[in-house]
């Protein structure tokens, strides 16, 4: 509780955990009571986490997006063309909203389409394995037509076969500044474990017969 004013600077890599936490505390001096109290409640835990066992920082997924371990995030917010929301929604409804065609890509963990701002924009958010370029290439080679049907609603979408397709996507992607993935396995590894588990169950059934 010193009366030091405005001493702290923006966190730099050279700062100690103590300094970083102190800077956060100063920033929270302007926060509502509620969150000041919340900060005080977790301060001890936070300090030890930052100092002793800092989690591995998020890394870049390549051209855009964040990655933790093997799993990356892609978050796109695109303007929709006039009539685009109606077409896209009709297509989604035809599939009962279930985009299981994405399974063909093989590296998609999850994927959502959310209409925003009175159907003028679309949020497309996925969790996937590996690098940005490889992921987009997978979409382009495995389900180019489904992608174009969906993205035809995007204003200015050049088509996935266009050399400008990646620039378009990168332009509208917003990289997450906080990211978390519980399962550090790829989709393929998770499926292998699933088969493994099934085989073990069968094996145990057999030997107990």
């Amino acid at each position, binding site marked *: 509780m010193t009366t030091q004013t405005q001493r702290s600077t923006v*966190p730099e890599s050279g700062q100690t955990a103590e300094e970083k936490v102190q800077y956060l505390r100063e*920033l929270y001096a302007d926060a509502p009571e509620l969150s000041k109290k919340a900060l005080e409640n977790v301060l001890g835990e936070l300090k030890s986490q930052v100092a002793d066992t800092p989690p591995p920082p998020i890394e870049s997924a390549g051209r855009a997006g964040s990655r933790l371990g093997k799993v990356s*995030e892609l978050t796109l917010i695109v303007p929709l063309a006039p009539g685009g929301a109606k077409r896209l929604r*009709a297509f989604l409804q035809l599939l009962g909203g279930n985009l299981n065609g994405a399974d063909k890509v093989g590296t998609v963990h999850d994927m959502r389409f*959310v209409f925003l701002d009175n159907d003028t924009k679309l949020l497309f958010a996925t969790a996937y394995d590996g690098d940005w370029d490889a992921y987009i290439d997978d979409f382009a080679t495995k389900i180019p037509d489904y992608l174009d049907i969906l993205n035809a609603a995007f204003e200015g979408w050049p088509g996935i076969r266009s050399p400008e397709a990646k620039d378009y996507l990168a332009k509208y992607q*917003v990289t997450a500044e906080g990211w*978390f993935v519980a399962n550090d396995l790829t989709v393929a590894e998770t499926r292998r*474990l699933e088969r*493994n*588990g099934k085989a073990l169950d069968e094996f145990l059934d057999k030997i107990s017969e």
Partner: protein
Amino acid sequence: MANQPQTGTAPQPDAGAQKIQQLRELFADATDVGKRALENVIKELSSQVSEPPPAIESAGRVGARLGKRSELTIIVPLVPGGAKRLRTFLQLLGGNLSPGATKVGTLHDMRFVFIDNDTRLLFATSFDGDWDTYIDDFIALIPDYLDLMDSAWDGWPGIRDPGAKDYLIKHQITAEGWFVAEPDLTLAEIQRLKRIGKATDEFLDKVQ
């Protein structure tokens, strides 16, 4: 292929074919890229529509669910200074939210994305089960982390406030398209499979 006139007794085209036809009509206004793409997959699409995949369901009060996995997508306005505080907090953790998030055993993935020049925040997660249970888990397991981050949100009443859930619902937008690679595996089941995988590897090593 009789060219029967439109009488009341004429066989109705099935509902799937009708839907495909409607989609085609809608796509008449689409770009050439979109029209061509639709024609390329129309056959495959027709057979999918006649044997449709399970439709997405509701995750409870809000949000979509497929099998056991649900989605939550929230876009909230930020208070002045909120983005700066939240960003500093995230940077303290290297952007990796695992310190708090691993305590919620039903949380698969979670992202924080600043949008519209730091005036709004997108918070999107994928989780097991029902909306109410999920929020209750946050409240019970990491209330302080939640308040620390959500205090950047304009009007956030605090997670212990009876108005907290209403606030979340007000800002949540349900996805109209959703996909999960493993919709039938909860996080607990995946972790069990991992332990089994390890044990089998050890077992096989031993018997060799």
